[in-house]
């Protein structure tokens, strides 16, 4: 598999207004969140939260330390993890209260993406969020190893290992569904 490398963050990127940056990277952030949460409507809300946070901290963005897309993905990831935590707490509370209502993993939500084959869609849904996010970053968003490592907070080598395992698992699951 060949994954194209992105150009490093340019100085012009720093100078670009938040509006332009948001417009440019909205699809990437949304796609990443869709893969991470398996839920397009949830991803929509989280993406809006992400850009709200990004706007709040826009002045702190330093283009020399990474691209705007990497920075936005980091915020998106933190936002999603916060949501996962809150959801887990909610689930525990409900379990204690014996109310069997819990977050359904995409049961009624639309598919990850309209064009995906059912086998690939099903295989992707069976992967863990950690596996899906590395595929999203490296395959879908085409971030290079360093950028993905920065988003995930791990080393580039660990990213490669995680991606390799995730893709292998995905292939296995696709073959099962076929």
């Amino acid at each position: 598999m060949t994954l194209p490398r992105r150009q490093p963050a340019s100085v012009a990127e720093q100078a670009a207004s938040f509006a332009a940056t948001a417009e440019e990277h909205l699809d990437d952030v949304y796609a990443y969140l869709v893969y991470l949460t398996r839920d397009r409507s949830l991803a929509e809300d989280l993406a809006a939260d992400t850009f709200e946070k990004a706007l709040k901290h826009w002045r702190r963005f330093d283009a020399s330390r990474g691209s705007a897309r990497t920075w936005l993905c980091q915020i998106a990831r933190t936002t999603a993890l916060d949501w996962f935590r809150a959801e887990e707490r909610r689930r525990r509370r409900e379990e204690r209260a014996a109310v069997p209502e819990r977050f359904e993993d995409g049961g009624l939500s639309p598919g990850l993406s309209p064009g995906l084959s059912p086998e690939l869609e099903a295989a992707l849904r069976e992967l863990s969020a950690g596996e899906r996010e590395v595929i999203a970053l490296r395959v879908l968003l085409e971030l290079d190893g360093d950028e993905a490592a920065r988003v995930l907070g791990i080393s580039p080598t660990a990213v490669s290992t995680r991606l390799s395992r995730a893709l292998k698992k995905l292939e296995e699951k696709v073959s099962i569904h076929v």
Partner: protein
Amino acid sequence: MSETLLNEIRATKPEAPSALRERVRALSVQEHAREPFLDRLRFTWGWRRLALAVPATVVVAFAAAGVIGLSRDGARDQVSAVGGGDTAVTSSTFEQAQAEDSAAPKAASPALPSRATGIVPPATGQLQRYEAELRLQVDDVEALSTATKRAQQIARSHDGSIASLQYDAPSEGVGTAQITLRVPTARVQSAMAQLSQLGTIVGQRYGIDDLQAQADSLQSQIEATQRQIAQLVSRLQSTTLSDAERAVLQSRLSNARTKLTGLREELRGTNAEARTATIYLTMTTEEIQAVPVGGGRLDGVKDVLAWEAIALLYALVVVGPFLIVGVIVWLMLRLRRRHVETRLLEQN
């Protein structure tokens, strides 16, 4: 992994719905309106700024040490200039040991100035026993001989005398002269100044004993004895005394007069002792390493730097354990957060 699957993933990348796009655009419109004033003034401490702060702090520490150290040196030079000439003078160990309060008895001598000309003068109007010791280094035996003769002249010129003199000048080896001079206390300062010019001072000290209390005590004893004698004389003039009583009173009067004579002698001796100071002058040809007073100009800078280092070390010792605990706690929290994140990503 087949390239087909990867291409399919790429080709079917989810696109942000128009509703989300509008929400984000609406956010962007608020960009300038919501920009907090403080955010514009915010000074973020990046690693690069911290990396600059460390050498900057070092430079400031050195600059402060330089300014404080050199200004201290300047002040010390001024004091030295008041004290006397600029000859190489040492503050030897023994003179440091003698640096004590002038009001104390001999064992506790007053603080000693580093130069003979700056020696503390005897107090006027106060009876004191004044002793000074001066150690000089001369170039050779010939200089030793000349200096010895000159020391005698100095004693005479100050209305003083030589109490003792030991002169040892072998053809080879170390020559030494030990002279005890007695000069009027009022002129001891001038004598010391002239004697210190005979060679390089390698040590000096002086001691002051308070004789005033002793003199006052003697004076009151004399006055009491005089009153006793007057009473005895008065009683002896009485015609009603028996022979035995008269004999006893005569004996007492005789003893009192003897005692008065002794007390007067003692008072005269005390006064004479206070009028004359003793100078113990030792001159030698032996080469003694003179340590310059105050050292170089950079000594003050070194001192301040040393104190800065001590303060830094102290701060590290005090703050260090807290820092280590803080770092450990931070690492543990980070590890726990990472663990929770991994679990959450595996579960969802």
